[in-house]
């Protein structure tokens, strides 16, 4: 019998047992639903992280450090390492525990600049600012500070950014959230206005010594001693532009106030003076010439590693995030697969009943000269139809529900406009349905064999 005739006959026979067919298909459909939704969620999250990475990390920039922790995406490694002057303490845990980490020194920065593939080296200044204020208000507000990255232009509410290179020294980029707080009428109004950032220098060793000396003297003379005040510095900048939160910006601490690299460096030097962090950075950004080409970035990484640096590329960061997504997806996928496995027994049961019910029909077909192999395929194709129906029902429901819920889900998760958490890939769905058909055929294998082996004489004797 020809395949097309078998498929049609199997389809008609299913149609005559509609309720049973649909119920059996629904079982496999639940699996198809779960798997389709899981795949779509995986696609969505991967797409989102891709955008997150490309919006927040310049692919041409490498994160370069001196400590192996730079490349470690898991829990910090606490095994002892050799001490040298580049080691300093870093507070890591909420419990106040600190990690000693080898830092990049100013000499290292000079060395890094000498590589011929290096276009630019930007230290990662971690400036602890005190507050931000403006002449238009008497209030002071907290802030996070960051150096402007020319490779990563933020979205603007007002103002302008230079086409190329750093922003002008003495200017800053103000997040839109500060506009009203600092007493400006609008984002446009803030452009060119002055704001001030306060930073503080910790006690110098001399100040402390003086304090202790005074304390001893005071105790002796009964005079008053004043505790040393940290040296505070108020630096004034002009607002160059007002930034706003992009749809895919990766920022856990809110949008930072951005200064030029030189200005940030000056603040860093001021705030770290006299501390072990002075002139040292946890890591630096190294911009590779033509590093948008993945191969060039990887070559640079290899060369730097050879010289004892530890390097992370934006691909490495992406990998860390997608690894997490993959694990989640596999977990949910396993549930989908379990559902499919459960539905396999439903198919086997249905097919056995179908074979029993149609003993005479099978006998007749074999008496008329139909090959046992064709009889078996008739039933396998019937099972395949069930798999196909289940796959289509499940993925169609997932698609419908997903499309309907997508805006709500995206909003609830706060992914921002233009992102969607569920992305349906029709190629994937087609492969899924094809696999379910295959699974159903395997499920129908033994019932079909039973049908093929039926003795037509016995079968036709059944009254």
């Amino acid at each position, binding site marked *: *019998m*020809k395949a097309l*005739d078998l498929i049609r006959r199997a389809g008609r*026979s299913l149609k005559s047992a509609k309720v049973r067919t649909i119920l059996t298909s629904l079982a496999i459909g639940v699996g198809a639903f779960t798997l389709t939704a899981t795949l779509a969620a995986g696609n969505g999250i991967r797409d989102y992280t891709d955008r997150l990475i490309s919006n927040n990390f310049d692919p041409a920039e490498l994160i370069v450090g001196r400590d192996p922790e730079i490349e470690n995406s898991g829990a910090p490694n606490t095994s002892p390492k050799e001490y040298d002057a580049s080691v300093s303490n870093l507070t890591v845990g909420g419990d106040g525990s600190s990690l000693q980490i080898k830092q990049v020194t100013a000499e290292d920065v000079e060395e890094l600049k000498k590589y011929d593939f290096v276009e630019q080296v930007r230290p990662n200044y971690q400036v602890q600012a005190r507050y931000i204020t403006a002449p238009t208000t008497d209030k002071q507000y907290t802030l996070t500070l960051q150096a402007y990255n020319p490779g990563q232009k933020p979205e603007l509410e007002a103002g302008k950014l230079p086409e190329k290179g750093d922003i002008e020294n003495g200017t800053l980029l103000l997040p839109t959230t500060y506009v009203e707080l600092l007493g400006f009428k609008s984002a446009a109004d803030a452009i060119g206005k002055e704001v001030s950032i306060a930073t503080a220098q910790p006690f110098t060793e001399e100040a402390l010594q003086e304090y202790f000396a005074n304390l001893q003297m005071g105790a002796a003379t009964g005079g008053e001693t004043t505790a040393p005040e940290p040296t505070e510095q108020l630096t004034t900048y002009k607002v160059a532009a007002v930034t706003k939160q992009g749809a895919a910006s990766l920022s856990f601490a809110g949008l930072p106030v951005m200064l030029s690299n030189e200005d940030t460096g000056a603040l860093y030097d001021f705030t770290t003076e006299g501390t072990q962090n002075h002139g040292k950075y946890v890591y630096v950004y190294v911009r590779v010439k033509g590093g948008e080409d993945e191969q060039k970035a990887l070559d640079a990484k290899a060369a730097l590693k050879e010289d004892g640096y530890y390097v992370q590329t934006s691909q490495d960061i992406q990998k860390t995030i997608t690894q997490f997504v993959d694990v989640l997806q596999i977990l949910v996928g396993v549930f989908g697969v379990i559902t499919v496995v459960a539905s396999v027994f439903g198919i086997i049961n249905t097919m056995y009943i179908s074979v029993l019910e149609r003993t005479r029909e099978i006998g007749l*077909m074999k*008496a008329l*000269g139909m090959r046992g192999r064709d009889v078996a395929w008739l039933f396998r194709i019937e099972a395949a139809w069930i798999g196909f129906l289940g796959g289509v029902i499940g993925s169609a429901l997932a698609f419908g529900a997903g499309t309907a819920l997508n805006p709500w889900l995206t909003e609830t998760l706060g992914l921002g406009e233009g992102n969607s958490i569920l992305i349906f890939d029709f190629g994937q769905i087609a492969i899924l349905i094809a696999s379910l058909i295959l699974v159903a055929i395997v499920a129908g294998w033994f019932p079909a064999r039973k049908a093929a082996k039926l003795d037509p004489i016995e079968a*036709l004797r059944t*009254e």
Partner: protein
Amino acid sequence: MITLRGISKTYGKKKQRFQALKDINLEIPDGASVAIIGKSGSGKSTLMHVMSGLDRPQTGEVIVDGQDILKLNTKAVDRFRSEKMGFIFQAFFVQGNESSFHNVALPLEIAKVPRSKRKAMIIEALERVEMPEKVTEYARNLSGGQKQRLAIARAIVAKPSILFADEPTGNLDSATGERIEKLLFDLNKQQGVTLVIVTHDHDLASRCDIRVNIKDGVIQSVDTAKRPKAKGGKS
């Protein structure tokens, strides 16, 4: 021409051993109508199954059109059956959930007749049994007589040279049965189809050219009151 030589068929083993056919020798000329008569359990159905290649005897030869079908493998026997033989059963065995059209199409699909040729053949077969208007009707909605006529259409659609009928009128009232008998004998006479009827109805048997009486697996007598007509031959 169907020739049976030294056919013996045994079922079961040891104590349950049961010999259904004992040394059967029989010759059926092309275009003949043959009745195999016997009580239930006499071996008449087994004889029909052996002739059609559905059942394999332990010994003997079944020569159909010069070919010993016992020497063929299952695949070849299946093909042989689908191309040369038609079957009609007492219980009709039509598929109620299929239309008349698809019931009749089954043998054509099995014989791999191209789709383009099928429709005309199916309509022709349904016209032959005088029910072309039922082509789209589901078989379950047909009366008993109509079902059997549908079964006949299915049996003749692939133009077989031999038609096996196992108690074709057993489930029908006499008027309907009469109509079915007429249809079968018309096919036999007009198209030269060899007709082999298994029955215990002596009236039906008396209309056949050859009557084979069988009892306990042994042929008691072969009665040839009427000779097959000269024009009989392969269609």
